[in-house]
């Protein structure tokens, strides 16, 4: 242990920088990090719900009327529960004991494969006569539609995951936490596709819907790398 005098010197040297960091932290969007944890969790979920509500009311799937209501509501509820658990885990405050690594790893794995599990669910309806548009997306149409859905889901999921990162208090996001945030975004993207895409062809859903969490993770990693480069460039300039 340093002696008292040296310790006081160290603390005196830290305080001005610390106060400046706190002042910077109280400006603009950074203030959101100081919201109480439950408010931050609610805000992340609200962003997810808001984007998916825009899809539901702005561009709903065309076969909504032939979907089985109970099953659809059960799937939506399941996705929302998974997303809420992901937000709770990701935004777990630092004044609490950390969760076990195995628990964390299981959550990340579960959220990463959630979109794939949803894609592999049996078709919600088989009524080709009532809604033939649900059974296109094969042959020459396959790749354009699959890539379209992957982009759509990723573009819904990425801002939701970014929202989660914005209210995160930790200084850096490691690969595991990045993947958890991507899983949260993936849940948002999957829900968006569930509400938007009427295709019931399993190959389309696996290809276009099943890898959204991974696609969101790639987008986030790319964005974070660009931001870090930009910050380095600006501080060097």
């Amino acid at each position, binding site marked *: *242990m340093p002696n008292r005098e040296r310790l006081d010197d*160290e*603390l005196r040297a830290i*305080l001005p920088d610390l106060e400046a960091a706190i002042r910077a*932290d109280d400006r603009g969007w950074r203030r959101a*990090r100081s919201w109480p944890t439950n408010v931050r969790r609610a805000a992340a979920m609200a962003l997810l719900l808001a984007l998916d509500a825009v899809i539901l009311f702005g561009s709903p799937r065309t076969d909504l009327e032939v979907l089985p209501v109970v099953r659809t509501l059960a799937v939506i509820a399941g996705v929302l529960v998974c997303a809420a658990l992901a937000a709770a885990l990701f935004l777990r405050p630092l004044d609490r004991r950390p969760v076990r690594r195995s628990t964390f790893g299981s959550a990340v794995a579960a959220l990463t494969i959630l979109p794939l599990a949803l894609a592999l669910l049996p078709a919600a309806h088989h009524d080709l006569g009532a809604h033939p548009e649900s059974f296109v997306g094969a042959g020459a149409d396959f790749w354009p539609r699959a890539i379209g859905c992957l982009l759509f889901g990723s573009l819904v999921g990425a801002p939701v995951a970014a929202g989660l990162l914005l209210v995160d208090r930790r*200084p850096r996001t490691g690969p595991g936490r990045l993947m958890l945030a991507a899983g949260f975004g993936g849940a948002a993207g999957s829900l968006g596709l569930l509400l938007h895409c009427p295709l019931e062809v399993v190959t389309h859903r696996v290809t276009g819907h099943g890898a959204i969490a991974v696609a969101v993770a790639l987008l986030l990693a790319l964005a974070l790398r660009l931001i870090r480069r930009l910050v380095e460039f600006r501080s060097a300039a």
Partner: protein
Amino acid sequence: MEAYAKGDTSAFSELFTRHGGAVFGRMQRSVGCAAARDLTQQTFLQLHRARRDFRIGAAFAPWLMTIAQNVLRDHLRRAARAPGSVSLLDEPAAPSRAQSAADVRESVQAALAQLPASQREVVRGYWLEHRSYSDIARDLGITRGAVKVRAHRAYRTLRRILLAQGYDA
């Protein structure tokens, strides 16, 4: 802390004056002086962000030290992930006859850097931070037995590496 949680910003410097030394001391024991400054600052920044999570009437010091411990753990994990970034050897192994302390330190650092991150964390926690296997197990989220297995494997590997460099068993 209650005043600070309720919005009295002037209470912060009082908190820092009262508890900064304990946090800095905890960090310094683990990571040395330079990193301790950064981690102490990080801990109090996290305190600032978490002030509205503080339950009025709860004990403040354990709450703050939990934050400090988590900040330290995150730092050590990041350091373990970065290859060759071990910089925590404040107390090198006992120097052998022929080599200087600096040589030994360098060799042990190089050997430690070759360990898998999971084993390196355990060696560092036990030998350099003087923490118990139970504490390390709790922080890493694994069982005490798993920590001992990692430690055993790490010592075996370190021994092999150092023997190959001509050190005595």
